[in-house]
């Protein structure tokens, strides 16, 4: 079905089910329990999971398949965001034209940068992409302020033209982004016992786009094109002497992954119409690299997992303050409570970076293939145990 093999199809279905049920799955703790802090099922974070998932999936098409490590992909995300916000300012608050434009602009941008950068390979390529991205960042941050609004970030305002929409709503506020009338920030809340689940229109739009992006990525991975890209990574020399020109392949991969980044940027702006220059900085490019490696470069699902992992830390761990900690450990005797809080304190809240750093190290040291490998190991362990259980069962049957 859908032109996919059985395994890929089940992966796609699994991902689809998980994303659709995410509001439930990510909110496992009742709202008034101490563990509610770990709930991730609110629109903003769920949107980020899937949007950065798209970003990482796209990055992986370039890096995972061809081995070309771009250190400037955030530039495309940023360009996509700016394009989308400008669309909101000039045209209308409908997200569709904004997203389409952001993909196109990012693609054009990627074509230009890729065309030049791909003249080099290895670290030289990485540094070229980095240089272009840092240049874009510096320009967006200051010189191009009229277009980007500098450090503050490009925002929509009351006096924007919005020729196909309204400049301001009747009550004098800035209109909100919508998908043919469905407001992106519209959220339905479902209360079940102590639990609270939020269903956000914006999230479901992003999730659907992500599923399409994921599906396309699977198709690319399994296509002759994808195979060529892996061949580029493996041995360019052989590729040339086999009658294939590696350049257009790598350039196509670069542009496709740039468009994925642009799509992510456009969605980001559609969910929250502000485009900040920081999202183009090298640290942002580094982040998608880390997401991809952390999840498992070259695997289909890895980048999405990596994106989720990092965003979770950034959003959840940074919010655990001493107050929360004291709440959790209140059951301990006072002295011990303080002691435990002191121990945990450096790792959460403002120390979330420390935990993240330690996690990076742990994952890459113990799971060289990233989180996907971790999953595989667990699966293998499970299968082995099951197999040996069955084995035992088989042995025992005759005895009955």
């Amino acid at each position, binding site marked *: 079905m859908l032109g996919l093999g059985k395994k890929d199809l089940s992966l796609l279905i699994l991902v689809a089910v998980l994303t659709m049920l995410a509001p439930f799955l990510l909110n496992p703790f009742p709202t008034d329990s101490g563990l509610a802090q770990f709930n991730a099922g609110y629109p903003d974070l769920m949107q*980020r999971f899937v949007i950065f998932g798209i970003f990482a999936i796209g990055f992986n098409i370039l890096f995972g398949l061809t081995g070309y490590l771009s250190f400037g992909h955030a530039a495309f995300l940023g360009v996509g965001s700016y394009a989308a916000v400008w669309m909101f300012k000039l045209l209308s608050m409908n997200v569709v034209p904004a997203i389409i434009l952001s993909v196109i602009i990012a693609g054009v941008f990627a074509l230009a940068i890729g065309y030049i950068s791909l003249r080099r390979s290895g670290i030289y390529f990485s540094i070229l992409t980095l240089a272009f991205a840092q240049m874009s960042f510096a320009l967006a941050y200051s010189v191009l302020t009229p277009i980007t609004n500098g450090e503050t970030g490009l925002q929509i305002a009351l006096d924007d033209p919005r020729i196909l929409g309204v400049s*301001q709503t009747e009550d004098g506020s800035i209109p909100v982004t919508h998908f043919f009338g469905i407001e992106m920030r519209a959220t339905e809340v479902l209360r079940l016992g102590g639990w609270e689940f939020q269903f956000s229109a914006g999230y479901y739009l992003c999730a659907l786009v992500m599923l399409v992006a994921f599906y396309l990525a699977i198709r690319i991975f399994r296509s002759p094109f994808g195979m060529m890209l892996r061949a580029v990574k493996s041995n360019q020399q052989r590729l040339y002497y086999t009658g294939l020109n590696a350049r257009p392949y790598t350039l196509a991969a670069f542009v496709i992954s740039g468009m994925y980044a642009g799509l992510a940027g456009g969605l980001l702006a559609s969910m929250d119409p502000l485009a900040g220059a920081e999202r183009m900085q090298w640290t942002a490019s580094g982040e998608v690299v880390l997401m991809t490696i952390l999840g498992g470069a070259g695997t289909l699902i890895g980048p999405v997992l990596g994106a989720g992992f990092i965003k979770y830390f950034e959003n959840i761990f940074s919010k655990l303050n001493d107050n929360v900690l004291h709440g959790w450990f209140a059951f301990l005797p006072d002295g011990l409570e303080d002691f435990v809080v002191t121990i945990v304190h450096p790792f959460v809240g403002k120390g979330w970076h420390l935990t993240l750093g330690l996690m990076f190290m742990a994952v890459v040291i113990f799971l060289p293939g990233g989180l996907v490998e971790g999953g595989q190991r667990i699966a293998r362990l499970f299968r082995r145990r099951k197999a040996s259980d069955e084995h035992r069962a088989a042995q025992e049957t005759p005895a009955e």
Partner: protein
Amino acid sequence: QESGFTNAPTGDTVTLGFNVPQTGPYADEGADELRAFELAVEHLNGGGDGGMLQTFSEKNLDGTGILGKKVEFVTGDTQTKSDAARASARSMIEKDGAVMISGGSSSGVAVAVQGLCQEAGVIFMAGLTHSNDTTGKDKKANGFRHFFNAYMSAAAMAPVLESLYGTDRKAYHLTADYTWGWTQQESIQAATEAMGWETVQNVLTPLAQTDFSSYIAPVLQSGADVLVLNHYGGNMVNSLTNAVQFGLREAQANGKDFQIVVPLYSELMARGAGENIKGIPGSQNWDWKIENELGSRYVGTNAFVKSFGEKYGFPPSQAAQTCYAQTLLYADAVSRANSFNPCAVAEALEDFEFDGLGNGPTSYRGSDHQCFKDVVVVRGKENPENEFDLVEIVEVTPTEQVTYEPDHPMFSGGSLGSCNPGA
């Protein structure tokens, strides 16, 4: 129970969101803001000695929380990035049900988060933000600023600069290349030119710059005799250090002693600059010594310093004071409005006059949501008595001198819009 606005508190608690830089170059400021927030919540909930609650001109806050609801809070990390700050604020609103967001450090971040709060329908009580734009072209009906701004700094400093350095001066500006730097530079240039100074040159420096030597080196040759550093935080520490290294402090130009001016000051910055800050003038929103030195007009200061100092072991910074004050002001506004509805709160804050929070008599102007109060002009102390005694108060410029019309050109462009209660 109230309803009809975003995150109307249900149950017997209310949640506030404190969004401060916990990582990145402003992390120390952020940490101090957070201390102040925690202290404010403690006082609101009836813990401790009450601090400024005792001196505050309004007496609606009695230690039983806000409108009888116990105050809870969540914290988040802005990373001093607009994107991250908005994400953090959104999660406070969407996940934790915060009805008010406070904090922030850079003006870019403050403007971005203020925009978000406007869209989401919660109140934003700005913390550290000093750009004119926050209550100028980017002002929002749901946003309020207690901190002073670049225009006020300039207006307060001009007379002091005149008396210190005279009216015949040539100034060279180095300016951080973003909204705060631009407005700061514009303001101080206008104010100094009005008293006769000449502006030789204004150079924009990248925010990420760490070594300013190539920007400092040409200063002496330019014919200038004053260097104005429109820098803050690490930028300022580094540019000042470089300026001193290049001998600007001892130099002579145009037959006068060369001078360095830092329009926006903070204690934390002074600590970073060490010896180099000695004798260099600048302005502050508040100083922990102000009540001791200038008397009871600034009542509240000592109460706050005492409760803060006893809890944390050192005196609060102006960042802490402004965040503490903002929290009390919000709580008080809710009490007076008898509602958490942002529109009601905004109405209660607009044109609200108060005293006893350490800044002297203060008012929240309704037309742009900017607080007006005295501005402290300080300079680096030559012989500090202890590690907290880094700045000395030169003068306090009274409110009238720093007040401007809401339609002042430096603040024009945007409009408040109407208050948004959200859902």
